[in-house]
Each structure stands twice: as C-alpha cells, then as structure tokens.
C-alpha cells in the first residue's frame, strides 16, 4: 500500500455515499513536540468508538503516515499524506486546498467518517489552522522545547481550542518548570483549556481523548 498522494492510478476503493461531513480537528505545533505520537494515541484510544481517518502534512510527506502504519493503529487506507511545497503553514492556513482534497478523498472512500484528524507539519509558534479547514484545533508544545514557550504566545498557544503540554515526564531531566509552563499557558489563554500529559505515563492520552470526544459531539450538535 502506498501513501503517495501523487499516485495517478485511480482510487481502488468504491466511493460511498457520504452520510454527512466528518468533524475535522487540526493538530499543530513545533517540530518534535509529539504531534504524531498524539495522533497515534488518539487513534488507539478512539479507533473503536469513532470512525476515524488522518491527514498528515509532514515536511517529508510520508514519514508520519509510515509511522502510523508501522504502529498499526490505523488501517493504511485511513491515512492520507499531502505535500506542502516546503510551506507547512501555507497548507493549513493560507491555501488549504491540498488538505481539503485529502479530506474529501477520505470521505468519499469511507462515506461514514465521524472524525478526521489533520496533523500539520512541524512549524513555528505562528502557525494556526484556517477555520475553513478544521472545526477545532489542538496546539501541542513540549517541555523539552523550553518552559518559556507558553509565555512567548503566538496564535497557536493563545487561540487554539486546546493547548497540550506534552512529555511532562521529561520536565525534571531538561530543567523545565512545569508549574511555570502551565501558569503561563493559563495566563496567555484565559478560559481556554490546557492539558499537561505524558504519553509514557498515559499511552492512551486519556484527557485529550475525552476532550476530542466532547468536541465531536459539540460540533455534531451544531450541524
């Protein structure tokens, strides 16, 4: 099975009549903050309860798709990768067509999806998803990236629907002050939620998975 989005062969899956648009949740954040690991954890945690598919925007295109395939959390045909022409933020914010095409391909293929997770390529703190692409967005930072990151702000930290502070098990090892990070995060974000987690301690990303389920229900209720 190839994840190659440039495949010119016809899609072998028989198109299914869509039963309604899947809820779309974007997952963004800096390089190495654990976006793909979070997607894999969510797929494991929610795969039984939701009909799920993933679009990845990794700079190296198939890296994340291959990771998800190897970790066997999702059937290969439930993962689509898009190429972003060296501009991961453009593909999720200014010109979202490649991602919309990938989502629609998945929706045509399965017809009954509840949730599509769109994982951005690793980017900087100014990257944010277009509201034309996703219904909700999660911004992922990690303690190893420096405990000053939440204080620096930027639209991802300040406006994302959920901020995840990842890899908290590493905090003592990298000299990061978790209390400072979460306090800064809450100060920058007002009422918006913050979840600090370690996928080593909790491979199922329980708190984030619960938040995702609540968002799926909330977005569905609006339609």
């Amino acid at each position, binding site marked *: 099975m*190839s994840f*190659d*989005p*440039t495949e*010119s062969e016809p899609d072998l899956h028989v198109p299914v009549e869509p039963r309604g648009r899947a809820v779309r949740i974007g997952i963004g954040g800096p390089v190495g903050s654990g976006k793909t690991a979070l997607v894999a954890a969510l797929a494991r945690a929610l795969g039984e309860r939701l009909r799920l598919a993933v679009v990845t925007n990794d*700079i*190296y*295109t*198939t890296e994340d798709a291959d990771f998800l395939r190897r970790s066997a959390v999702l059937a290969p045909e439930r993962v689509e990768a*898009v*190429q*972003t*022409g*060296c*501009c991961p933020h*453009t*593909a999720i914010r*200014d*010109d*979202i*067509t*490649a991602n*919309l*095409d990938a989502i629609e391909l998945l929706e045509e293929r399965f017809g009954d999806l509840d949730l599509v997770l769109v994982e951005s390529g690793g980017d900087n703190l100014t990257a944010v998803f277009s509201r034309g692409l996703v219904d909700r967005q999660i911004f992922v930072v990690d303690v190893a990236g420096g405990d000053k990151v939440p204080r620096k702000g930027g639209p991802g930290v300040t406006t994302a629907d959920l901020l995840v502070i990842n890899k908290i098990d590493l905090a003592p090892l990298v000299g990061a002050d978790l209390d400072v990070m979460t306090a800064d995060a809450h100060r920058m974000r007002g009422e918006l939620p913050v979840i600090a987690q370690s996928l080593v301690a909790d491979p199922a990303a329980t708190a984030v998975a619960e938040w995702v389920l609540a968002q799926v229900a909330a977005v569905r209720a609006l339609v």
Partner: protein
Amino acid sequence: MPSLAALTLADARFPGGGHVHSGGLEEAVARGLVTGTADLAPFLLGRLRTAGLTAAAFAAAAAVPDAPFGLLDAELDARTPAVAQREASRAQGRAALRAARVAWPSPVLDVLVAVHPRPHHPLLVGAVVGLSGGPPAEAAHCAAYLSVSGPASAAVRLLGLDPFAVNAAVVALGPVLDAVVAEATVPRRPERLPAPGAPVLDLMAQAHVHHHREQVRLFVS
C-alpha cells in the same frame, strides 16, 4: 487595464493550490540541473516557450464565449504526453476551481465541470477570465506567467536563492512572455493550437513521481 480576475489568478496568494507545484523544478534541482539563479533563467525560458505557450493558447481558447471545453480538454490531453503532467494540471485545475466556485459563481463553470470534474488548469484560468469579461489575451498572459512564477518561487524555497535575483529573472522574461501571448492568441481551431514539445520536462515529471516513492519530494509536481 487587466481584469481583477486575471490579477487574482496570477497572485501567489490566490488560494488555488499552486504553491505545492514546482513545474518540474524540484526534479531538476534534485538532478543538479538547476543550482542557482544563473541556470534557473534558462530553465524558466524553456518552460515558458513550451509548457507556457501550450497553457497560454488553451487558456485563451477557453476564454471566449461558448468555448468548446470538451474538445479543448481532449486536445490538451493529447499535447501532454506525461501522465504525471496531466495529473498535475488537473490537480491544479480542480484546486483553483474550488476557489473559483466561491469567487466567480457562474454557469460557465458548470459547463466546464460537466466535461471533466477535474478540469485542466489552463481551461479553468481561461474560463474564469472569460466569464469575468476579460479578453483571451489576458487569460493567455495569466497562464504563461503562472508557468514560470510557480517554478521560480519553488527555486527560492528549495535552493534558498536570493529572492530579488529570482524575481528579476522572471521579469527579464517580459519580451518572451509578450511573444508567447501573441503566438497563443492567434485565432485557430482547437486542433490547430500550438503543440510544442518539451521531452525533458515530460521525463522529469514522470521521474518526480517515481522518485517520490523512494526518496522525498516536497512538491506534488
């Protein structure tokens, strides 16, 4: 004065999916054929006089009222021997269609989509300029310019070239661009439209897709 439609379509900020296509430039860079601004210029010149002329001629032909989209679609397919390039053209046409549907809703787009749900990019450009009241030459100008502006931008991103020098290299193509537009807008029946060949671009487009499966390509084409 150019129509707002032509300016919008040619704008790098137009959300029509163009930023993920390099027009063969990425493959040329991967093969060491383009390494800097000096060898980017002849690459762009060759692309403008071949792929650019074909795109311009079909955009112009699609900009007239009641353009024969079905025939133009088939004729453009026939002039695009590499399946990777036909795919890239239709991918860009489909992407730009999404934006065009919102900005320029028109029954002309329904007619175009009835021919093929993923229209060739030059036909979409011509249809939008035409339905906005722009003359065929404007559609040709837009398509010809896009045939080099995308690869030039990709070169800046892939090679870290001086953006001022690359921009100047595009602007220096002005006289050739004018000549391409003049050639593209000579009234002809669809089957008599220009059909310049660019075998190296064809082969590199195929190689790009092939290599993506083993190495990494950051652009779709």
